[in-house]
């Protein structure tokens, strides 16, 4: 697949650069909302919606936003969409709203959204940014659902809130608790690392150029890049 084709951009986020399992972004909502498949899917879809919209708007405005104030501008745009999504969820899926609680509002500071704005949307066209948002959002949702399925089935003997009676005496509650989330998360990262062996981006690909902290970073390597 050609590196700049639309399909490549779309599928990039699903496995090769999966935001949760390869880029290790958005760890906080991942661990917090994966005790239940329903909550995890809701979180994924809400983030997906915000990500597509914010990526498109930021890509549209990428030539207008001055470089020195870009982060506050991104935050304002993202916060606007998060508020819309929050109100919609509150109105139409109140059960999900109750379940996600503060984590719904905290999508504003989700690293994936800011990270994609900085790394992708601020440099690419509107169409590609929308596809990137879609791919990354689906990747996020799939990763969350995978973690949540393991945690809920093994730890609570239920799936999306529906009890599985024959697993009830065999449940291992450790997995719905925070340390269990860390363990499942780590195992899935290892699994994806194995599946994408040699194909996922190496650490050196993330140089200072794409780094959101470049403008205020004090590392010597960063300064060199800025001078260039």
């Amino acid at each position, binding site marked *: 697949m050609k590196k700049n084709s639309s399909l490549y951009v779309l599928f990039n986020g699903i496995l090769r650069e999966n935001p949760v399992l390869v880029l290790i972004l958005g760890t906080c909502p991942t661990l917090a909302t994966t005790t239940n498949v329903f909550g995890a899917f809701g979180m994924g879809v809400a983030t997906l919606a915000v990500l597509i919209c914010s990526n498109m708007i930021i890509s549209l405005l990428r030539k207008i936003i001055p470089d020195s104030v870009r982060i506050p501008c991104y935050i304002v745009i993202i916060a606007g969409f998060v508020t819309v999504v929050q109100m919609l969820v509150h109105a139409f899926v109140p059960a999900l709203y109750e379940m996600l609680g503060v984590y719904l509002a905290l999508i504003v500071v989700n690293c994936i959204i800011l990270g994609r704005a900085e790394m992708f949307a601020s440099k690419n066209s509107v169409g590609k940014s929308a596809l990137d948002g879609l791919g990354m959002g689906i990747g996020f949702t799939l990763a969350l659902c995978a973690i949540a399925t393991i945690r809920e089935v093994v730890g609570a003997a239920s799936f999306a809130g529906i009890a599985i009676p024959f697993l009830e005496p*065999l449940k*291992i*509650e*450790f997995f719905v*608790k925070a*340390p269990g989330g860390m*363990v499942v998360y780590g195992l899935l990262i290892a699994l994806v690392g194995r599946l994408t062996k040699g194909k996922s981006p190496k650490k050196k690909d993330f140089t200072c150029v794409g780094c959101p902290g470049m403008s205020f970073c004090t590392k010597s390597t960063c300064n060199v890049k800025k001078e260039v």
Partner: protein
Amino acid sequence: MENNMLHISASPHIHSGKSTASIMRDVIIALAPASIAGAVIFGLRALLIIAVCVATCVVCEYFYNVIVKRYQSAGDLSAAVTGLLIALNVPANIPIWQCIVGSAFAIILVKCVFGGIGCNLVNPAITARIFMLVSFGSMATQAMPKIVDVTAGATPLELIAGGETPAMKDLLLGTTGGALGETCAVALILGFIYLLARRIITWHIPVVFVASVFVLSYLSEGSLETALALVLSGGLLIGAIFMATDYVTSPPTAWGKVLFGFGAGLLTFLIRKYGVYPEGVSFAILFMNILTPYIERLTSHKIFGGVK
């Protein structure tokens, strides 16, 4: 390069004759009295639990090493010690499948994933005990001794929390509720004396650990009898003697060990007194395991003539 790190003094070196397997064999011998006491007090099911835990640990270690093509360490008895310790830390009425899950967790996720023997961050047996405690309700319902007529289901720690002091004879002989190997103080102290005599462990961690729990309990309870009962009950002795002294996860220097023992004692006391769980020994040891690298750095020997 890495080999330089292992040389702690100039050659020639004398080999002590000890090996991992010989040390682990001594630990198993030291645990034998507690295992036998567990079988006598709680019935023959104790032996089944011990067999299942040891077998699961050794089998998991063997297959993990085969799958990841690593040096085969299943035969060095370290996995067997982990399994034995897990067995001694569970109540006699625990379902067998929970023993298997806990043992597999200890060996695969706590030990092997971090690089096998010598590379684990925390003690596998202690972590498995905590894993099982937060996972299974059966860990909280303690089995009652088979050889005496006891109907009340309270462990000594629960009795003390309720204002009673359990009889000293019961605590020493282990005829109280609790995990398989933790109740019989006499058997555990026998094991401690054996380990000291064979120079497998030094006295620092167990003595400082137990003494700090004793002193803090005395200061807070104001009664020598209650303080002594608190020291003899729960998992304190087995934890202090066999699990806090794990070479890999405790500091090597004498002062480091004293600091480790005191920290674990303080945390045990605080969790017992103010925490939601009745027993804090395992959490205290786990926490000090994590602090061990920092304690080591703090107490490392200054090399004579070395540059700072």
